[in-house]
Protein backbone atom coordinates (compact mmCIF):
# COMPACT_ATOMS: atom_id res chain seq x y z
CA UNK A 1 0.00 0.00 0.00
CA UNK A 2 0.98 3.63 -0.34
CA UNK A 3 1.35 5.92 2.67
CA UNK A 4 1.40 9.72 2.46
CA UNK A 5 2.50 11.65 5.48
CA UNK A 6 4.62 14.58 6.57
CA UNK A 7 8.12 14.00 7.88
CA UNK A 8 10.06 16.86 9.43
CA UNK A 9 7.77 19.40 7.82
CA UNK A 10 7.91 18.00 4.27
CA UNK A 11 5.32 15.77 2.60
CA UNK A 12 6.59 12.27 1.87
CA UNK A 13 5.20 9.27 0.06
CA UNK A 14 6.18 5.70 0.80
CA UNK A 15 5.30 3.04 -1.75
CA UNK A 16 4.92 -0.73 -1.62
CA UNK A 17 4.52 -0.60 2.13
CA UNK A 18 3.60 -3.96 3.63
CA UNK A 19 0.43 -3.75 5.72
CA UNK A 20 2.09 -5.02 8.87
CA UNK A 21 5.07 -2.72 8.54
CA UNK A 22 5.98 -0.28 11.30
CA UNK A 23 6.50 3.44 10.95
CA UNK A 24 10.09 2.81 12.07
CA UNK A 25 10.72 0.51 9.11
CA UNK A 26 9.25 3.02 6.69
CA UNK A 27 11.44 5.80 8.06
CA UNK A 28 14.64 3.78 8.04
CA UNK A 29 14.31 1.51 5.04
CA UNK A 30 12.01 3.38 2.69
CA UNK A 31 12.75 7.03 3.37
CA UNK A 32 16.43 6.63 4.22
CA UNK A 33 16.16 8.19 7.66
CA UNK A 34 18.13 5.85 9.92
CA UNK A 35 18.33 8.30 12.83
CA UNK A 36 15.50 6.56 14.67
CA UNK A 37 17.10 3.36 15.89
CA UNK A 38 15.76 -0.15 15.66
CA UNK A 39 16.56 -2.06 18.81
CA UNK A 40 13.89 -3.95 20.72
CA UNK A 41 10.93 -3.66 18.34
CA UNK A 42 8.59 -3.98 21.29
CA UNK A 43 8.41 -0.50 22.77
CA UNK A 44 10.74 -1.32 25.65
CA UNK A 45 13.79 0.76 24.79
CA UNK A 46 12.58 4.03 23.29
CA UNK A 47 15.43 4.28 20.78
CA UNK A 48 12.91 4.62 17.94
CA UNK A 49 11.08 7.54 19.60
CA UNK A 50 9.62 10.07 17.15
CA UNK A 51 6.89 12.66 17.48
CA UNK A 52 3.58 11.75 15.90
CA UNK A 53 1.34 14.81 15.66
CA UNK A 54 3.57 16.33 18.31
CA UNK A 55 3.38 13.44 20.76
CA UNK A 56 6.38 11.17 21.50
CA UNK A 57 5.70 7.58 20.50
CA UNK A 58 7.68 4.44 19.77
CA UNK A 59 7.69 4.33 15.98
CA UNK A 60 8.18 0.55 16.09
CA UNK A 61 4.67 0.21 17.52
CA UNK A 62 2.89 2.47 15.04
CA UNK A 63 1.62 0.66 11.96
CA UNK A 64 2.70 2.47 8.82
CA UNK A 65 -0.89 2.75 7.62
CA UNK A 66 -1.80 4.61 10.79
CA UNK A 67 0.36 7.63 9.89
CA UNK A 68 -1.51 8.40 6.67
CA UNK A 69 -2.01 12.16 6.57
CA UNK A 70 -0.20 12.74 9.86
CA UNK A 71 2.91 14.63 10.96
CA UNK A 72 6.10 12.95 12.08
CA UNK A 73 9.24 14.59 13.44
CA UNK A 74 12.39 12.47 13.65
CA UNK A 75 15.76 13.24 15.15
CA UNK A 76 16.97 14.31 11.69
CA UNK A 77 14.49 17.18 11.78
CA UNK A 78 15.01 18.08 15.41
CA UNK A 79 17.40 20.99 14.82
CA UNK A 80 15.05 22.61 12.33
CA UNK A 81 12.05 21.84 14.50
CA UNK A 82 13.67 23.46 17.55
CA UNK A 83 14.71 26.47 15.50
CA UNK A 84 11.19 26.98 14.20
CA UNK A 85 9.79 26.63 17.68
CA UNK A 86 12.16 29.25 18.99
CA UNK A 87 11.33 31.66 16.19
CA UNK A 88 7.60 31.14 16.17
CA UNK A 89 6.97 30.68 19.85
CA UNK A 90 5.98 27.78 22.04
CA UNK A 91 5.15 24.53 20.33
CA UNK A 92 6.56 25.54 16.97
CA UNK A 93 4.85 25.12 13.66
CA UNK A 94 7.25 22.69 12.04
CA UNK A 95 5.38 19.61 13.17
CA UNK A 96 2.31 20.89 11.43
CA UNK A 97 4.10 21.35 8.13
CA UNK A 98 3.71 25.11 8.35
CA UNK A 99 7.46 25.71 8.16
CA UNK A 100 9.79 24.91 5.30
CA UNK A 101 10.89 21.77 7.06
CA UNK A 102 13.89 19.57 6.45
CA UNK A 103 14.16 18.11 2.98
CA UNK A 104 14.75 14.40 2.69
CA UNK A 105 18.17 15.00 1.13
CA UNK A 106 19.20 17.33 3.90
CA UNK A 107 17.95 14.87 6.47
CA UNK A 108 19.80 11.97 4.87
CA UNK A 109 23.03 13.95 4.83
CA UNK A 110 22.63 14.84 8.48
CA UNK A 111 25.35 13.51 10.75
CA UNK A 112 26.56 14.57 14.13
CA UNK A 113 30.17 14.88 13.02
CA UNK A 114 30.62 16.56 9.68
CA UNK A 115 32.97 19.06 11.28
CA UNK A 116 33.81 18.31 14.85
CA UNK A 117 32.02 15.66 16.83
CA UNK A 118 33.64 16.77 20.08
CA UNK A 119 32.19 20.25 20.10
CA UNK A 120 29.33 20.14 17.64
CA UNK A 121 30.80 23.10 15.78
CA UNK A 122 29.97 23.61 12.15
CA UNK A 123 26.71 21.71 12.16
CA UNK A 124 23.26 22.88 13.00
CA UNK A 125 22.12 21.34 16.25
CA UNK A 126 19.11 21.77 18.46
CA UNK A 127 19.86 23.01 21.99
CA UNK A 128 19.24 19.55 23.42
CA UNK A 129 21.71 17.99 20.94
CA UNK A 130 24.35 20.57 21.83
CA UNK A 131 23.74 19.96 25.52
CA UNK A 132 24.21 16.19 25.06
CA UNK A 133 27.59 16.84 23.43
CA UNK A 134 28.66 19.40 26.02
CA UNK A 135 27.66 17.22 28.95
CA UNK A 136 29.27 14.08 27.53
CA UNK A 137 25.91 12.33 27.46
CA UNK A 138 26.72 10.35 24.31
CA UNK A 139 28.76 7.19 24.46
CA UNK A 140 27.90 4.53 21.89
CA UNK A 141 25.13 6.82 20.70
CA UNK A 142 22.53 4.20 19.92
CA UNK A 143 19.96 5.41 22.44
CA UNK A 144 20.74 9.07 21.79
CA UNK A 145 18.21 9.87 19.02
CA UNK A 146 15.29 8.56 21.06
CA UNK A 147 16.47 10.37 24.16
CA UNK A 148 16.89 13.61 22.23
CA UNK A 149 13.35 13.49 20.85
CA UNK A 150 11.88 12.60 24.25
CA UNK A 151 13.93 15.18 26.16
CA UNK A 152 13.23 17.94 23.64
CA UNK A 153 9.50 17.32 23.93
CA UNK A 154 9.65 17.43 27.72
CA UNK A 155 11.51 20.76 27.68
CA UNK A 156 8.90 22.15 25.31
CA UNK A 157 6.11 21.12 27.69
CA UNK A 158 7.93 21.71 30.94
CA UNK A 159 10.71 24.30 30.67
CA UNK A 160 11.80 23.98 34.31
CA UNK A 161 11.71 20.27 35.05
CA UNK A 162 12.61 18.78 38.40
CA UNK A 163 14.91 15.77 38.44
CA UNK A 164 11.85 13.61 39.00
CA UNK A 165 10.19 15.12 35.91
CA UNK A 166 13.27 14.36 33.82
CA UNK A 167 13.49 10.81 35.10
CA UNK A 168 9.85 10.19 34.36
CA UNK A 169 9.97 11.76 30.89
CA UNK A 170 12.97 9.58 30.00
CA UNK A 171 11.75 6.43 31.75
CA UNK A 172 10.85 4.86 28.42
CA UNK A 173 14.37 5.25 27.02
CA UNK A 174 17.09 2.75 27.89
CA UNK A 175 20.81 3.55 27.81
CA UNK A 176 23.31 0.82 28.57
CA UNK A 177 26.50 2.93 28.52
CA UNK A 178 26.21 6.12 30.48
CA UNK A 179 24.47 5.14 33.66
CA UNK A 180 22.12 8.05 32.88
CA UNK A 181 23.93 10.61 35.05
CA UNK A 182 25.44 12.45 32.10
CA UNK A 183 22.11 12.32 30.31
CA UNK A 184 20.40 13.94 33.28
CA UNK A 185 23.22 16.53 33.30
CA UNK A 186 22.58 17.25 29.63
CA UNK A 187 18.86 17.78 30.11
CA UNK A 188 19.47 20.04 33.11
CA UNK A 189 22.00 21.97 31.03
CA UNK A 190 19.57 22.40 28.16
CA UNK A 191 16.85 23.52 30.57
CA UNK A 192 19.18 26.06 32.20
CA UNK A 193 20.27 27.44 28.83
CA UNK A 194 16.67 27.63 27.67
CA UNK A 195 15.76 29.55 30.81
CA UNK A 196 18.68 31.94 30.40
CA UNK A 197 17.71 32.54 26.79
CA UNK A 198 14.13 33.19 27.85
CA UNK A 199 15.32 35.81 30.31
CA UNK A 200 17.52 37.48 27.69
CA UNK A 201 14.55 37.87 25.35
Amino acid sequence: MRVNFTVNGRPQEADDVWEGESLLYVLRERLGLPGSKNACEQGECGSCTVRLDGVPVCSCLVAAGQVEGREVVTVEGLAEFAKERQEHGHGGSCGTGACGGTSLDEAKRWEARPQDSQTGEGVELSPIQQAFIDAGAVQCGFCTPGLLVAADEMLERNPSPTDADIREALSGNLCRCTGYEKILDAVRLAAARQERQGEAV
Partner: protein
Amino acid sequence: MDFLRPASWEEALAAKAEHPTAVPIAGGTDIMVEINFDHRRPEYLLDLNRIELLREWEVGEESVRLGASVPYSQIMENLREELPGLALASHTVASPQIRNRGGVGGNLGTASPAGDAHPALLAAGAEVEVESVRGTRLIPIDEFYKGVKRNALEPDELIKTVHVKKADGPQQYSKVGTRNAMVIAVCAFGLALHPETRTVRTGIGSAAPTPVRATAAEEFLNAALEEGGFWDNGRIITPSIAKQFADLASGACNPIDDVRGTAKYRRHAVGIMARRTLGWTWEQYRAGNGRTLEGAA
Protein backbone atom coordinates in the same frame (compact mmCIF):
# COMPACT_ATOMS: atom_id res chain seq x y z
CA MET B 1 -2.62 -8.98 5.05
CA ASP B 2 -5.09 -6.20 4.43
CA PHE B 3 -5.10 -2.84 6.18
CA LEU B 4 -8.63 -1.53 6.68
CA ARG B 5 -8.92 2.17 7.42
CA PRO B 6 -12.51 3.02 8.30
CA ALA B 7 -13.14 6.77 8.49
CA SER B 8 -16.12 6.48 10.80
CA TRP B 9 -17.47 4.25 13.54
CA GLU B 10 -20.22 2.97 11.23
CA GLU B 11 -17.64 1.99 8.64
CA ALA B 12 -15.60 0.24 11.31
CA LEU B 13 -18.61 -1.80 12.44
CA ALA B 14 -19.43 -2.70 8.84
CA ALA B 15 -15.83 -3.79 8.25
CA LYS B 16 -15.82 -5.89 11.42
CA ALA B 17 -19.11 -7.51 10.38
CA GLU B 18 -17.72 -8.32 6.97
CA HIS B 19 -14.37 -9.54 8.33
CA PRO B 20 -14.94 -10.93 11.83
CA THR B 21 -11.33 -12.15 11.97
CA ALA B 22 -10.05 -8.59 11.51
CA VAL B 23 -7.82 -7.54 14.39
CA PRO B 24 -8.55 -4.01 15.64
CA ILE B 25 -5.47 -1.83 16.05
CA ALA B 26 -5.62 1.43 17.99
CA GLY B 27 -2.48 2.25 20.03
CA GLY B 28 -0.80 -0.81 18.53
CA THR B 29 1.27 -1.39 21.64
CA ASP B 30 0.29 -5.06 21.85
CA ILE B 31 -0.50 -6.08 18.32
CA MET B 32 2.55 -4.43 16.71
CA VAL B 33 4.85 -6.36 19.05
CA GLU B 34 3.23 -9.59 17.91
CA ILE B 35 3.57 -8.59 14.26
CA ASN B 36 7.17 -7.37 14.65
CA PHE B 37 8.12 -10.70 16.21
CA ASP B 38 6.21 -12.72 13.65
CA HIS B 39 4.00 -14.21 16.34
CA ARG B 40 0.87 -13.18 14.56
CA ARG B 41 -0.15 -12.51 10.98
CA PRO B 42 -3.75 -11.35 11.04
CA GLU B 43 -5.56 -11.51 7.73
CA TYR B 44 -6.94 -8.02 8.32
CA LEU B 45 -5.80 -5.14 10.49
CA LEU B 46 -8.64 -2.79 11.35
CA ASP B 47 -7.18 0.64 12.10
CA LEU B 48 -9.30 2.62 14.56
CA ASN B 49 -7.07 5.72 14.69
CA ARG B 50 -9.21 7.78 12.38
CA ILE B 51 -12.33 7.41 14.48
CA GLU B 52 -12.60 10.54 16.57
CA LEU B 53 -15.31 9.40 18.95
CA LEU B 54 -13.03 6.70 20.34
CA ARG B 55 -10.62 9.39 21.52
CA GLU B 56 -13.26 11.45 23.31
CA TRP B 57 -14.55 11.35 26.86
CA GLU B 58 -17.54 12.86 28.56
CA VAL B 59 -18.03 13.44 32.26
CA GLY B 60 -21.65 12.74 33.16
CA GLU B 61 -23.66 12.81 36.38
CA GLU B 62 -22.83 9.32 37.54
CA SER B 63 -20.10 8.10 35.28
CA VAL B 64 -17.45 9.02 32.76
CA ARG B 65 -17.95 7.80 29.23
CA LEU B 66 -14.41 7.03 28.27
CA GLY B 67 -13.65 6.41 24.60
CA ALA B 68 -11.82 3.14 24.06
CA SER B 69 -8.79 4.87 22.51
CA VAL B 70 -8.36 7.76 24.93
CA PRO B 71 -4.65 7.44 25.67
CA TYR B 72 -3.52 6.74 29.23
CA SER B 73 -1.60 10.03 29.27
CA GLN B 74 -4.89 11.89 28.74
CA ILE B 75 -6.60 9.93 31.51
CA MET B 76 -3.76 10.82 33.88
CA GLU B 77 -3.92 14.45 32.92
CA ASN B 78 -7.65 15.08 32.66
CA LEU B 79 -9.54 12.54 34.74
CA ARG B 80 -7.64 12.43 38.03
CA GLU B 81 -10.57 13.91 39.92
CA GLU B 82 -13.30 11.74 38.47
CA LEU B 83 -11.36 8.51 38.05
CA PRO B 84 -8.49 8.60 40.55
CA GLY B 85 -7.96 4.84 40.60
CA LEU B 86 -7.80 4.58 36.84
CA ALA B 87 -5.57 7.67 36.64
CA LEU B 88 -3.13 6.05 39.07
CA ALA B 89 -3.25 2.78 37.16
CA SER B 90 -2.66 4.67 33.90
CA HIS B 91 0.44 6.23 35.41
CA THR B 92 1.93 2.78 35.96
CA VAL B 93 1.50 1.75 32.32
CA ALA B 94 4.87 1.20 30.65
CA SER B 95 6.44 4.54 29.61
CA PRO B 96 5.37 7.99 28.40
CA GLN B 97 5.68 6.84 24.78
CA ILE B 98 3.37 3.87 25.39
CA ARG B 99 0.93 5.90 27.49
CA ASN B 100 0.64 8.33 24.59
CA ARG B 101 -0.67 5.52 22.38
CA GLY B 102 -2.37 2.89 24.50
CA GLY B 103 -5.87 3.15 25.96
CA VAL B 104 -8.33 1.19 28.04
CA GLY B 105 -9.95 -0.36 24.96
CA GLY B 106 -6.69 -2.15 24.21
CA ASN B 107 -6.42 -3.52 27.73
CA LEU B 108 -10.00 -4.78 27.51
CA GLY B 109 -9.61 -6.15 23.99
CA THR B 110 -6.44 -8.03 24.86
CA ALA B 111 -7.95 -9.08 28.22
CA SER B 112 -4.59 -10.09 29.63
CA PRO B 113 -4.85 -10.67 33.39
CA ALA B 114 -1.84 -8.32 33.67
CA GLY B 115 -3.52 -5.32 32.03
CA ASP B 116 -2.98 -2.34 34.32
CA ALA B 117 -6.44 -0.81 33.89
CA HIS B 118 -8.44 -3.87 34.98
CA PRO B 119 -8.11 -3.68 38.79
CA ALA B 120 -9.00 0.02 38.72
CA LEU B 121 -12.08 -0.62 36.53
CA LEU B 122 -13.21 -3.49 38.76
CA ALA B 123 -12.80 -1.39 41.89
CA ALA B 124 -14.51 1.72 40.52
CA GLY B 125 -17.34 -0.19 38.87
CA ALA B 126 -17.70 0.03 35.10
CA GLU B 127 -19.63 -1.14 32.09
CA VAL B 128 -18.12 -1.80 28.71
CA GLU B 129 -20.16 -0.53 25.80
CA VAL B 130 -19.63 -2.77 22.79
CA GLU B 131 -21.27 -2.43 19.43
CA SER B 132 -21.78 -4.33 16.22
CA VAL B 133 -24.01 -3.79 13.20
CA ARG B 134 -26.56 -5.83 15.18
CA GLY B 135 -26.70 -3.31 18.00
CA THR B 136 -25.19 -2.15 21.27
CA ARG B 137 -24.54 -4.04 24.49
CA LEU B 138 -23.47 -2.79 27.92
CA ILE B 139 -21.39 -5.48 29.59
CA PRO B 140 -20.77 -5.13 33.35
CA ILE B 141 -17.03 -5.22 33.98
CA ASP B 142 -17.43 -8.23 36.28
CA GLU B 143 -18.81 -10.25 33.38
CA PHE B 144 -16.38 -9.00 30.76
CA TYR B 145 -13.35 -11.20 31.49
CA LYS B 146 -13.94 -14.77 30.39
CA GLY B 147 -10.55 -16.45 30.58
CA VAL B 148 -6.86 -15.90 29.95
CA LYS B 149 -6.86 -13.31 27.18
CA ARG B 150 -10.53 -14.00 26.46
CA ASN B 151 -13.35 -11.51 26.85
CA ALA B 152 -17.10 -11.35 26.30
CA LEU B 153 -16.88 -9.80 22.82
CA GLU B 154 -18.60 -11.47 19.89
CA PRO B 155 -16.49 -11.71 16.73
CA ASP B 156 -18.34 -8.85 15.03
CA GLU B 157 -18.25 -6.51 18.02
CA LEU B 158 -15.94 -3.61 18.78
CA ILE B 159 -15.34 -1.83 22.08
CA LYS B 160 -16.70 1.70 21.88
CA THR B 161 -16.67 3.29 25.32
CA VAL B 162 -16.21 2.33 28.92
CA HIS B 163 -18.66 3.82 31.38
CA VAL B 164 -16.67 4.17 34.58
CA LYS B 165 -18.44 5.21 37.78
CA LYS B 166 -17.22 8.57 39.02
CA ALA B 167 -15.40 8.32 42.31
CA ASP B 168 -17.56 9.03 45.35
CA GLY B 169 -14.64 8.42 47.68
CA PRO B 170 -10.92 7.72 47.78
CA GLN B 171 -9.40 5.20 45.38
CA GLN B 172 -5.94 3.68 45.31
CA TYR B 173 -3.91 1.47 43.07
CA SER B 174 -0.80 -0.53 43.74
CA LYS B 175 1.39 -2.56 41.42
CA VAL B 176 4.39 -4.79 42.02
CA GLY B 177 7.18 -4.81 39.46
CA THR B 178 10.94 -4.71 39.23
CA ARG B 179 11.06 -1.01 38.45
CA ASN B 180 8.62 1.87 38.14
CA ALA B 181 8.60 2.05 34.36
CA MET B 182 8.22 -0.54 31.64
CA VAL B 183 7.04 -3.43 33.73
CA ILE B 184 4.29 -5.93 33.26
CA ALA B 185 2.69 -6.27 36.67
CA VAL B 186 3.85 -9.16 38.81
CA CYS B 187 0.54 -8.45 40.47
CA ALA B 188 -1.60 -5.40 41.10
CA PHE B 189 -4.41 -4.30 43.37
CA GLY B 190 -7.05 -1.60 43.08
CA LEU B 191 -9.32 -0.45 45.88
CA ALA B 192 -12.18 2.04 45.90
CA LEU B 193 -14.18 3.26 48.86
CA HIS B 194 -17.77 4.06 48.00
CA PRO B 195 -19.05 6.12 50.96
CA GLU B 196 -22.40 6.76 49.25
CA THR B 197 -23.30 3.09 49.34
CA ARG B 198 -20.94 2.35 52.24
CA THR B 199 -19.22 -0.33 50.27
CA VAL B 200 -15.72 -1.18 49.22
CA ARG B 201 -14.77 -2.62 45.86
CA THR B 202 -11.52 -4.23 44.83
CA GLY B 203 -9.71 -5.49 41.77
CA ILE B 204 -6.81 -7.90 41.50
CA GLY B 205 -4.51 -8.05 38.48
CA SER B 206 -2.03 -10.71 37.37
CA ALA B 207 -2.91 -13.14 40.13
CA ALA B 208 -5.60 -15.28 38.51
CA PRO B 209 -6.52 -16.38 34.96
CA THR B 210 -8.56 -13.18 34.65
CA PRO B 211 -8.69 -9.91 36.55
CA VAL B 212 -10.94 -10.59 39.56
CA ARG B 213 -12.57 -8.89 42.49
CA ALA B 214 -11.81 -10.08 45.99
CA THR B 215 -15.51 -10.47 46.77
CA ALA B 216 -15.15 -12.35 50.06
CA ALA B 217 -12.75 -9.66 51.29
CA GLU B 218 -15.17 -6.94 50.19
CA GLU B 219 -18.11 -8.58 51.95
CA PHE B 220 -16.14 -9.06 55.14
CA LEU B 221 -14.94 -5.44 55.13
CA ASN B 222 -18.36 -4.03 54.30
CA ALA B 223 -19.82 -5.89 57.28
CA ALA B 224 -16.95 -5.01 59.62
CA LEU B 225 -17.07 -1.30 58.73
CA GLU B 226 -20.83 -1.23 59.20
CA GLU B 227 -20.74 -3.12 62.45
CA GLY B 228 -18.06 -0.89 63.97
CA GLY B 229 -19.74 2.27 62.74
CA PHE B 230 -16.52 3.21 60.97
CA TRP B 231 -18.17 5.16 58.16
CA ASP B 232 -19.71 7.50 60.74
CA ASN B 233 -17.09 7.65 63.47
CA GLY B 234 -14.16 7.70 61.05
CA ARG B 235 -12.01 5.71 63.43
CA ILE B 236 -8.81 4.02 62.33
CA ILE B 237 -9.53 0.54 61.02
CA THR B 238 -8.25 -1.98 63.53
CA PRO B 239 -5.24 -4.09 62.58
CA SER B 240 -7.25 -7.28 62.97
CA ILE B 241 -9.86 -6.10 60.43
CA ALA B 242 -7.11 -5.01 58.04
CA LYS B 243 -5.35 -8.34 58.43
CA GLN B 244 -8.50 -10.35 57.83
CA PHE B 245 -9.23 -8.23 54.75
CA ALA B 246 -5.69 -8.80 53.48
CA ASP B 247 -5.90 -12.55 54.06
CA LEU B 248 -9.20 -12.79 52.21
CA ALA B 249 -7.81 -10.72 49.32
CA SER B 250 -4.86 -13.07 49.20
CA GLY B 251 -7.27 -15.99 49.16
CA ALA B 252 -9.11 -14.56 46.16
CA CYS B 253 -5.98 -15.12 44.05
CA ASN B 254 -5.49 -18.12 41.84
CA PRO B 255 -2.02 -17.36 40.53
CA ILE B 256 0.61 -19.33 38.64
CA ASP B 257 4.40 -19.48 38.80
CA ASP B 258 5.94 -17.70 35.84
CA VAL B 259 9.00 -15.68 34.87
CA ARG B 260 7.73 -12.61 36.70
CA GLY B 261 7.04 -14.26 40.04
CA THR B 262 5.85 -17.33 41.89
CA ALA B 263 2.27 -18.04 42.85
CA LYS B 264 3.24 -17.92 46.52
CA TYR B 265 4.83 -14.50 46.14
CA ARG B 266 1.82 -13.15 44.26
CA ARG B 267 -0.59 -14.31 46.95
CA HIS B 268 1.57 -12.72 49.60
CA ALA B 269 2.04 -9.43 47.71
CA VAL B 270 -1.68 -9.09 46.97
CA GLY B 271 -2.39 -9.37 50.70
CA ILE B 272 0.17 -6.67 51.44
CA MET B 273 -1.20 -4.37 48.73
CA ALA B 274 -4.75 -4.93 49.98
CA ARG B 275 -3.77 -3.88 53.48
CA ARG B 276 -1.79 -0.85 52.28
CA THR B 277 -4.37 0.44 49.81
CA LEU B 278 -7.02 0.06 52.50
CA GLY B 279 -4.83 2.09 54.87
CA TRP B 280 -4.20 4.81 52.28
CA THR B 281 -7.79 5.19 51.19
CA TRP B 282 -9.10 5.10 54.74
CA GLU B 283 -6.68 7.81 55.79
CA GLN B 284 -7.94 9.92 52.89
CA TYR B 285 -11.53 9.24 53.90
CA ARG B 286 -10.80 10.20 57.51
CA ALA B 287 -9.03 13.35 56.41
CA GLY B 288 -12.20 14.23 54.54
CA ASN B 289 -10.43 15.09 51.35
CA GLY B 290 -11.63 11.94 49.75
CA ARG B 291 -10.41 12.61 46.28
CA THR B 292 -6.81 13.66 46.67
CA LEU B 293 -4.15 11.45 45.18
CA GLU B 294 -1.57 11.89 47.93
CA GLY B 295 0.37 8.81 48.90
CA ALA B 296 -0.27 7.36 45.51
CA ALA B 297 1.21 4.20 44.10
